């Protein structure tokens, strides 16, 4: 096991930030920590890194207890902080070299690693730039390079795509998958469910310091009753027509707002076909109709009763 967290409790005064949190991260996976802001993701990460004191629980990394002086463990960990953590007075190259130098003493080896990291994040043209001259996206890439240059076996990325343009976000996500393919185990925290769905092999959903669900994305979606969500943009719809929809099999709920009909149905066959037939039979005129499978937000909504982005 790469990381094992057992019954972790962390309090900030009266606030219970982590409530008996337990989870494991296996070798070679991209483990996603998904939850809204303030759910305890970063606190959990800081406890794993032995930066934060915690009230109760055990943490092992690479099957050894994690402590501040556990240098043999730390040597194989790379961290990409939520806030960009680089020196404004050093150039791109110097920043990566400085942080890599905290892990690798040999100059020649370090030079090769730094150059590799620069190529990996695509900052070849910016090596002599100071961080203030970089765009937000490039700065995030530098932040990543500083965390991964020493080729760690475990990489922890804490919301690495916050305030990043789509192009840089894609580049970052592709890079994370590439690092994983090269053999690194990844812990990825985010409140963007699309990102987590896109790259994570296993996901834990956190809310108010509690683990509310864990599994692959399919396993998580399988935990909820919702199977399909059908949205119809009607021109006009009556109460009796809505009642006809509600009478269909597998229907969980039908909501209408400003002519937009949202039908949530349980798992089952022919849901969309049944809806279309009813629309035709009831002579409901409509513009667009589309069907969506459940998202992680639906999982979160069904378990907690609130949307992930709240």
């Amino acid at each position: 096991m790469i990381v094992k967290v057992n019954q972790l409790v962390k309090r900030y005064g009266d606030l219970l930030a982590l409530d008996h949190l337990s989870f494991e991260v296996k070798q070679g996976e991209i483990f996603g920590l998904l939850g809204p802001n303030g759910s305890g993701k970063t606190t959990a990460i800081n406890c794993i890194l032995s930066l934060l004191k915690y009230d109760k629980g055990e943490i092992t990394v690479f099957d050894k207890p994690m402590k501040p002086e556990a240098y043999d463990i730390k040597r194989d960990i790379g961290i990409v902080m939520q806030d960009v953590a680089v020196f404004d007075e050093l150039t791109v190259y110097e920043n990566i070299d400085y942080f890599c130098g905290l892990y690798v003493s040999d100059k020649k080896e370090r030079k090769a690693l730094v150059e590799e990291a620069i190529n990996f994040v695509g900052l070849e043209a910016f090596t002599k730039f100071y961080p203030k001259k970089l765009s937000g996206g490039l700065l995030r890439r530098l932040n990543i390079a500083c965390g991964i240059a020493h080729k760690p076996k475990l990489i922890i990325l804490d919301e690495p795509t916050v305030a990043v343009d789509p192009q840089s976000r894609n580049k970052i996500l592709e890079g994370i998958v590439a690092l994983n393919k090269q053999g690194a185990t990844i812990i990825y925290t985010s409140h963007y469910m699309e990102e987590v769905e896109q790259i994570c092999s296993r996901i834990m959903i956190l809310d108010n310091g509690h683990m509310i669900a864990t599994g692959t994305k399919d396993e998580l979606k399988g935990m909820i009753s919702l199977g399909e969500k059908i949205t119809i943009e009607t021109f006009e719809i009556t109460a009796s027509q809505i009642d006809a929809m509600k009478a269909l099999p597998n229907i969980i709920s039908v909501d209408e707002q400003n002519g937009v009909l949202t039908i949530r149905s349980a798992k089952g066959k022919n849901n969309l076909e049944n809806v279309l037939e009813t629309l035709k039979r009831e002579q409901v005129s409509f513009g667009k109709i589309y069907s969506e499978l459940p998202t992680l937000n639906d999982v979160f909504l069904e378990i907690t009763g609130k949307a992930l982005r709240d």
Partner: protein
Amino acid sequence: MFLHNFTYRVKCLLRQKSLVFWTMIFPIALATFFYIALSNIRTIDEFSPIGVALIDNEALSAQPAFKETLQQLAEGERPLFDLTVSDESAALEMLKDYEISGFIKAGVTPELVVLGSGLNQSILKNFLDQYSQNAAAITEIVSMNPEALPALLESLSMSQNHVVEKGITEKPMNPMVIYFYALIAMACLYGSMYGLEEVNRVQANLSTKAARINIAPVHKLKVFTAGVLAALLMHFSGLLILLAYMHFVLGVAFGDHLIQLLVVIFVGSIMGISLGTFISAVVKKSEGVKIAVVLVVSMLGSFLAGMNIAEVKYYIAENLPIIGYLNPATLLSDALYALYYYDFSIRFFINIAGMSLYSLLFCTLTYFIIRGRKYASL
């Protein structure tokens, strides 16, 4: 690892413009300002010979002793008069052009012509009054009692000053050095900025860079030590530049003890940096507040050491000596003062010991505050 941290810290500190400004450029600018302001005061204190013209006429030819007396007062290392012998119209022109303070026409009673009143004019009048008084006394005694003349002349030449000026040091007294020494003390205490920066860099609850360093497989106190030594190198170099500028460009005197002078600056630099680490560790506020505290401590300390008003230093020494002993800036400026005036006096060593104790105290307290490697919150 040490060299890696040290080298990068020097690079960072050198490129940090605000730090370079406060610790190097600002003290140099302030020293230049002091020099300009104090130059005017020095000029006021210096005595310039009084320009005076002596009218060349028949009466003057009849009184060679008068002319000779004036000529003697216009000679020597510190002449009283800048004497010109000319005709009356030329003297009047010079007077109107303010080239001279007045002109004298010889006669039974010498006549002084001036355009206004002032110190120079008063001196000229006093001189003429005293000369006329002595000349009249001699004339009268010669006519009444010629035998008394030798005794009179002897008594006139026996004018003596019964007060002997004896300095506490053989060095020329220069009250201006207090301002510059207090300025150096302030520059040393500005090293607090470096100390503040170094603590911010290793305390994970103060900066994200520090968090990243704490996660690395290296003890944060090793990183901290390398940073503090880099800061010391930078700060000490800055102070040497300041000293060199003060001495070679502004002509500020520091005495003849270069090694001891460097010891004062070195210990002062350590004290300044350690003060900053302590303030940064103990003040649980934002970086801006910490910088404000550092500036207030440095400026207030230097003010009490006499940087702005030299009399403050004397007042505290006489009325509140405990503040003088407790003020790091006073210890520092006083060490320089003692070195300049008294060479190796006990006063110099007391000041150095006080500064060393302060440094030790600040370092120890900082260590106990920042040694923890896990934080209650980030």
